[in-house]
């Protein structure tokens, strides 16, 4: 019975957990419920992905209403992988949150914090699993509202302003998306993604479809922080509580990229998006500018969380670059990097969370000389940094490898060269931190701190180990990513 209901359990477990978290007055129990919800969701995601890889097409009719009329959950290799990323990161970061959140969030708000936390997770998983366009919007709003509340709970007062800024930008993005979906509904009379994909080819010449495409592209790009639309991201990441930064940096932009992939490739189809509208020509320069300028900006940041946030915008540039090739290798690189970037950024932000727990600041001056005081934390940061740069034996190398292959396949030598050159920018900004940590003179405050507690180190190192494991044995991830890329290019799932 359970196997048949996995798609529903995927969403219902975090939703029920969200409600229960708020109802109990004890913060530890509240955390326990959140953890149970996250673990259940993870188990469901693993089950779903393994069945998809076995060649099964998973469909689940909510409320028993058949597909084009009712809401349908549909899982293929693409969203199976996204579900695994979100749920997996969810478990690790929830484990991290127990200790970190008690330090950074007001005691009385902790049950509410976990309520918003689980809602955010539920929304992100929902966006990934649903096969209904309007349902995507609903889950997008659920996850966004959860995220706004979570960011606002940061201990810095500027967290409120950055959450409000994200609220405004996020709402603009969401309204663009709903306008796009509305126009598609007007034109086709259906909201089911597979059904839309079937009906749209006959309407390719229509201006309404073109406008819908434009609205969806801009709205989703805002949500995933594509280069000129990224201004909300650095502050939101920098001032949110550490655990929250870890969660949203590793998952929410990834899910937005998934929505973009779904609409470009499955719904509108690669011939419309890339041949007729030559979207690749627009995405490629934006991606390159994002990678180059944001890596440069990251070099000059003194707040390390902010530095990594700018680096995230650059990394999203790499993902978009892979998408802009619209080839199997390019899409494999993009989906691989979805997974790999979640691992490396999750690990890096959690390592910073450990620093925040002990030192109370992630300013570069506060990090000086910490290498001797917090060896494990700083080793984790360095390993995550190496992965971000793309050193062999880490996941970063695997993504960059496929990205360069994809560029060469298109005959774009300069782009391939630029990918390699921009990696050296990552070397610069990671080195700044490493230098301060290992060779800087410790301040009086840094001299008295000790290593972060095991409850913080274990989740951080779990992600680092994953970084190394999937960097050495990439067969599983490349296999899934390749299957996802072929599913996307093959039209309807």
């Amino acid at each position, binding site marked *: 019975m359970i196997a048949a*209901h996995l798609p*529903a359990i995927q969403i*219902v477990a975090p*939703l*029920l957990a*969200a*409600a*229960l978290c*708020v*109802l109990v007055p004890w913060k530890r129990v509240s955390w326990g419920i959140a953890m149970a919800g996250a673990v259940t969701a993870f188990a469901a995601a693993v089950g779903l992905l393994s069945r998809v890889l076995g060649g099964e097409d998973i469909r*689940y*009719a*909510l*409320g*028993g209403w058949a597909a084009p009329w009712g809401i349908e959950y549909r899982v293929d290799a693409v969203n199976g992988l996204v579900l695994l990323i979100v749920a997996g990161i969810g478990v690790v970061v929830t484990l991290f949150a127990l200790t970190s959140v008690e330090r950074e969030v007001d005691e009385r708000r902790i049950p509410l914090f976990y*309520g918003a936390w689980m809602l955010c997770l539920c929304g992100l998983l929902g966006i990934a699993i649903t096969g209904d366009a309007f349902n995507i919007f609903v889950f997008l709003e659920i996850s966004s509202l959860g995220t706004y509340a979570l960011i606002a709970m940061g201990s810095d007062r500027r967290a409120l302003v950055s959450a409000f800024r994200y609220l405004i930008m996020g709402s603009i993005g969401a309204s663009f998306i709903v306008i796009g979906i509305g126009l598609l509904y007007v034109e086709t009379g259906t909201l089911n993604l597979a059904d839309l994909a079937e009906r749209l080819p006959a309407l390719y010449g229509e201006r309404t479809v073109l406008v819908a495409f434009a609205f969806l592209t801009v709205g989703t790009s805002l949500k995933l922080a594509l280069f000129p639309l990224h201004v909300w991201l650095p502050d939101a990441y920098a001032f949110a509580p550490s655990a929250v930064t870890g969660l949203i940096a590793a998952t929410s932009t990834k899910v937005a990229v998934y929505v973009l992939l779904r609409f470009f490739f499955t719904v509108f189809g690669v011939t419309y998006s890339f041949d007729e509208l030559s979207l690749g020509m627009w995405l490629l320069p934006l991606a390159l500018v994002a990678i180059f300028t944001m890596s440069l900006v990251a070099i000059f940041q003194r707040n390390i969380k902010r530095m990594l946030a700018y680096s995230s915008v650059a990394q999203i540039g790499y993902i978009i670059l892979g998408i802009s090739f619209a080839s199997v290798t390019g899409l494999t690189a993009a989906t691989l990097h979805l997974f790999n970037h979640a691992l490396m950024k999750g690990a890096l932000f959690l390592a910073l969370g450990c620093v925040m727990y002990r030192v109370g600041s992630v300013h570069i001056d506060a990090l000086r000389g910490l290498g001797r005081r917090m060896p494990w934390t700083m080793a984790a940061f360095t390993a995550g940094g190496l992965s971000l740069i793309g050193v062999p034996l880490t996941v970063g190398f695997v993504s960059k490898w496929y990205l360069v292959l994809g560029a060469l396949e298109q005959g774009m030598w300069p782009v391939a060269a630029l990918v390699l050159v921009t990696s050296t920018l990552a070397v610069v900004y990671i080195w700044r931190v490493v230098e301060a940590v290992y060779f800087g003179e410790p301040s009086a405050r840094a001299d008295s701190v000790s290593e972060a507690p095991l409850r913080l180190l274990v989740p951080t190192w779990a992600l680092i180990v994953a970084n190394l494991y999937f960097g050495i044995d990439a067969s599983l991830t490349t296999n899934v990513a390749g299957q996802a890329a072929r599913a996307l290019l093959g039209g309807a799932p």
Partner: protein
Amino acid sequence: MRDQIILRIAAKILVGPILLFALYVQFHGDYGPGGGFQAGVIFAAGIILYALVFGLDRARAAIPTSIVTWCGTLGVLIFAGVGVVAMFMGGNFLDYGVLLYDAEHAQHIGILLVEAGVLVTVFGVMVTLFYSFAGRRRSR
């Protein structure tokens, strides 16, 4: 506004019928316009009117903040709970058809329960919003 006798009497007369009308909108939702969301808003409007006229403290004494917050999440549990029960009875999530002996009655009772969940949540959230905005200066 406690010295405004007309307002006070009018509010006293109106609050009861407003709450009753909310229940009418709820239970009539599957035959005519209405449903849990509208009912929840109307129910909350009744409480908010009471608070506006008689003061926040008396409204809080009648319906404490803790209960309102509880309602906000309880509704979600009712909603999801109905879905989960349907799952255990052999249907898909939120498939009300399997809840009772025949599909027609089951659909009826199912949608009513789900809408009740919506009512409770919407009521709870509306009043929570009102309480927290209205009580901002006082609680500091």
